[in-house]
């Protein structure tokens, strides 16, 4: 399918029309095709019921569809169905791991992260540190460089228990080689966790290829509903993982004295799950399979390459952009600034030092103008990656991120919008 043909499947683009909206905030969340919406409505209309326990027809149908969804999503990343735990989102998956793996860690054990992690792959570990006094080490890569196996190897010690890294940075678009990194990590005996929030939606991902122990991703970033995401864990890994949330469905028996657990993956799914979420995500996976993940990746690579070309040709004064320039390792994510507003530094803000007239357009202003002039929807701010924003030495950035329905026209409109904001707010 071409991007134009793909767009036809998305009611929101029909509603706003070609001129109305250029949606470029796909790293935050994606639009939903008719196929996903219909799968959700089908559940409500034809077989709405709780899952797992009902022996009546609605309950059986709901359970079957729910189980099939798990199988289908597992298959998408090359996993068995019992290796897929349904969670709300990537964030919950990583918290589950920080808690359940964390319960086995002790003082001084080390966890390795990187400076390009999303907050959801930082804060859960910092919270664990508060409880357990573990040590967190950061790989500090330059924004132009992907994370290399050596960067990890350099930090590994005998005390390293967990390495948790994003497969693709949501701000730089840098794609890290998780397979090679996993090898290094496993050689040291540590556990490898991959934050797949920006990789699973955008490129072929097979867990057996990578070899990682765990992989987390969110449905809403891959055409699916919000409120549903997955934690993949290798069967052996999940078998040994202590439960996280307790309640219905995850138990086998409960007495006043104690409880015994269900088998995996149900052991990790306490309470009524997001049933239509799982079913909707499965429909999204089918949609992506029809396009083909190789094609998704190819399409986005072409768009980001075209973006680089447009950046050069437009030669906008003060424009700075971030991320690797190696397009083989670059996802469809484009973060930039028009002039850089330096990061906040109390020390430097004494009276003598105040230079009000920073030669820059604040990302919020840029986004608002882009929206109001060309209907271009951009994200501005810290992108939940404050440590990287800090390392870039800035206060914020503007980000465009592409998906299957975007086209070169959208990139052209992006640059029109940037120019409009320069016209409005340029100093």
């Amino acid at each position: 399918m071409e991007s134009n043909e793909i767009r036809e499947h998305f009611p929101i683009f029909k509603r706003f029309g070609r001129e109305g909206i250029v949606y470029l905030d796909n790293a935050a969340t994606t639009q939903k095709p008719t196929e996903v919406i219909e799968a959700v409505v089908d559940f409500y209309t034809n077989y709405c019921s709780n899952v797992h326990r009902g022996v009546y027809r609605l309950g059986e149908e709901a359970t079957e569809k729910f189980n099939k969804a798990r199988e289908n999503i597992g298959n998408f990343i090359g996993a068995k169905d019992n290796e897929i735990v349904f969670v709300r989102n990537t964030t919950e998956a990583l918290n589950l791991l920080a808690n359940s793996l964390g319960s086995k860690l002790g003082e001084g054990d080390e966890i390795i992260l990187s400076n390009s992690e999303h907050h959801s792959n930082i804060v859960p570990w910092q919270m664990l540190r508060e409880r357990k006094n573990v040590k967190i080490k950061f790989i500090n890569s330059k924004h132009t460089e992907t994370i290399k196996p050596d960067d990890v190897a350099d930090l590994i010690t005998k005390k390293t228990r967990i390495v948790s890294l994003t497969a693709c940075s949501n701000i730089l678009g840098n794609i890290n080689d998780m397979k090679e990194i996993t090898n290094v990590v496993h050689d040291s005996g540590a556990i490898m966790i991959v934050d797949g929030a920006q990789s699973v939606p955008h490129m072929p991902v097979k867990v057996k290829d990578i070899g990682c122990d765990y992989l987390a991703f969110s449905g809403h970033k891959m055409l699916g509903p919000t409120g549903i995401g997955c934690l993949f864990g290798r069967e052996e890994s999940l078998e040994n993982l202590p439960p996280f949330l307790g309640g219905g469905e995850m138990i086998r028996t409960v007495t006043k004295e104690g409880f015994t657990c269900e088998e995996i993956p149900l052991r990790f799914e306490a309470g009524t799950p997001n049933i239509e979420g799982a079913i909707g995500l499965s429909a999204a996976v089918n949609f992506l399979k029809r396009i083909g993940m190789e094609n998704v990746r190819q399409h986005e690579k072409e768009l980001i390459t075209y973006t680089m070309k447009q950046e050069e040709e437009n030669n906008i004064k003060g424009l700075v952009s971030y991320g690797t320039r190696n397009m083989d390792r670059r996802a469809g994510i484009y973060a930039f600034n028009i002039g850089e507003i330096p990061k906040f530094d109390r020390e430097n803000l004494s009276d003598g030092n105040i230079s009000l007239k920073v030669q820059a357009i604040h990302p919020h202003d840029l986004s608002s103008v882009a929206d109001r002039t060309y209907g271009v929807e951009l994200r501005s701010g810290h992108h939940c990656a404050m440590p990287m924003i800090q390392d870039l030495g800035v206060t914020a950035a503007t980000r465009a991120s592409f998906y299957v329905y975007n086209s070169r026209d959208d990139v052209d409109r992006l640059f029109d919008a940037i120019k409009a904001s320069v016209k409005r707010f340029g100093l």
Partner: protein
Amino acid sequence: MTDDEYINSEILDEHFRTPRNFGVLKDCTVEIIESNPTCGDTIVVDLKINGETIEDVKYITRGCSISTAAASMLSETIIGKTLKEVENLSKAEVLSNIGLRLGPARERCALISYDAVQKGIKKHLKGGKEAEHF
């Protein structure tokens, strides 16, 4: 906010390009550092309070046009007012001074200086003097 309002607002431009009372108050009574979680902007507000009255205000921000202009307008509003008067100032009034219809995210930009000032007054009343570090 319609296109015209935001794109052409003269008052926004005025205050953004030449913000009033920008800077540091060496002899401030209380200082507050507030950050806007939406975009990581940070504002430093210095208040000089004499008895019941706000005698002077200065602030530093490198925020967006709206947060800068809002801080500028707010500083003009509160100088010379009593603490009670400022405490009674509502968010709605501050927003209506700016005169633009703002979405929820930009509203936070417009209110960061307001939040800082309110916290500053609370801190002063509690007897706090040192700057709050983040």
